[in-house]
């Protein structure tokens, strides 16, 4: 079954079959990343533009490596070096890039919906690499690949997602993906950072999404604990008193982690604030699959580029 779509804008409108296709394809690309020659000629002659209006190291590098390992030409544009600083509008930027005939545009923007807007104006495949507090589909897919590798399934898995859910596109994309595949997601964090009511969207999902009473309850008996980054750049509103207090009440330490299942795994989308949302002994401990997530990110992005930009 192929991916019948031009763009990957979010997980919300993906079917279970499409999610599984991307994950299965990514599985093959994982092998390529461990070969001596980590490159296949599949996207030779294709051009992928990484258009990043927000700071990013991991995601941008990951997309760049993914494109290069498929033999595509990848070009990186960041907002600080683009004509955006000269006052060009988003649509004008997109249409100018489109005029140079790329095959895929990967976009990160601080405004929710920016990739969707661009997708309407260009023929290239548009891939959302994070839009505001909305979605970050490839992150959820790489998280899913990591979970599948460790747990072998999604149905019935208990997943705790802890932290700043309000501002987190990672939390949102994961909630869509995991509940579609039958997992049970529990959110927890400071009340000021929990978008209560969000769970109503998942009433018809195969799995479920809910807000736990507190962090310990969410983590209790969990198969997967996903910590969200405290987004310093989005905390001007004074959502919690201090980082120290956040760490005490909501951070993941070994004691709290002991409430989860003995074989639980710990995920974090990065970049990590050590000692704030997660303690170093957890990050570097045996439960942590944080670096596997990064490795799987390249494979997932290769799969998405192959499926969207490979054909005519």
């Amino acid at each position: 079954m192929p991916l019948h779509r031009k763009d990957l804008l979010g997980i919300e409108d993906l079917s279970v079959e499409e999610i599984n296709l991307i994950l299965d394809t990514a599985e093959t690309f994982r092998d390529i990343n461990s070969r001596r020659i980590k490159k296949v000629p599949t996207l030779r002659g294709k051009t992928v533009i990484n258009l990043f209006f927000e700071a990013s190291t991991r995601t941008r590098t990951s997309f760049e490596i993914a494109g290069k390992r498929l033999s595509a030409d990848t070009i990186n544009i960041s907002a600080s070096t683009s004509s955006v600083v000269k006052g060009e509008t988003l649509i004008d930027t997109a249409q100018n890039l489109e005029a140079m005939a790329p095959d895929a545009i990967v976009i990160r923007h601080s405004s929710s919906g920016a990739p969707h807007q661009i997708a309407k104006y260009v023929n290239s495949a548009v891939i959302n690499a994070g839009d505001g507090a909305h979605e970050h589909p490839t992150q959820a897919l790489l998280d899913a690949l990591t979970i599948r590798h460790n747990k072998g399934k999604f149905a019935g898995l208990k997943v705790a997602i802890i932290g700043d859910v309000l501002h987190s596109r990672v939390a949102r994309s994961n909630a869509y993906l995991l509940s579609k595949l039958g997992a049970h997601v529990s959110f927890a964090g400071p009340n000021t950072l929990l978008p209560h009511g969000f769970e109503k969207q998942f009433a018809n999902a195969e799995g479920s999404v809910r807000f736990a009473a507190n962090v310990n309850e969410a983590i209790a008996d969990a198969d997967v604990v996903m910590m969200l980054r405290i987004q310093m750049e989005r905390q001007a509103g004074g959502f919690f008193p201090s980082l120290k207090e956040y760490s005490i009440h909501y951070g993941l330490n070994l004691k709290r982690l002991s409430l989860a299942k003995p074989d639980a795994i710990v995920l974090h989308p990065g970049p990590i604030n050590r000692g704030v949302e997660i303690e170093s002994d957890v990050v570097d401990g045996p439960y942590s699959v944080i670096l596997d997530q990064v490795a799987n990110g390249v494979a997932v992005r290769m799969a998405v580029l192959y499926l969207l930009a490979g054909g005519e």
Partner: protein
Amino acid sequence: MDFKEKAVVMTAADMNRVMARMASQIVENNPDLSNIILVGIHRRGVPLAERLANKIKEMDSVAVATGTLDITLYRDDLSTVAEQPVVNSTQLPANITGKTIILVDDVLYTGRTVRAALDELIDFGRPHRVQLAVLVDRGWRELPIQADYIGKYVNTTEHEIIKVMLPEYDEDERVIVVETK
């Protein structure tokens, strides 16, 4: 697409006999069996490579190494196909440099699959030699490629398709010619 079955090219018993002959030709041509790797091309080349390995084991009591190759990412028509084909896994023994690789596929037709397979192999290392074994050679080559071991040569027209049916993927075991209607 509808297919009309035109003729049976090989029965299961024929296939078995032919594979035994191909196995003995491989043994004859490669005195050092420990240096060869039978590499099946997805999908039907994979079980055929296993069968050849089994035949060689029956004959010479040598367990020949096997591997699998998926050529999807190396196809020359990827940018023109409407739907992206599913990618299967490629599994080769750790180091193929210096080895004799015997590529195994069910049908040799245009030669484009073998061209892709050769490109992919080279990305894994520098084999000493590469040979090609096919169950059926149906002609119509578009590239200068030929097989070293051929189960059966079958004259075909452009509109005919050779279907190799194997219990691993099909309900039957035989080789037939079908015509597209």
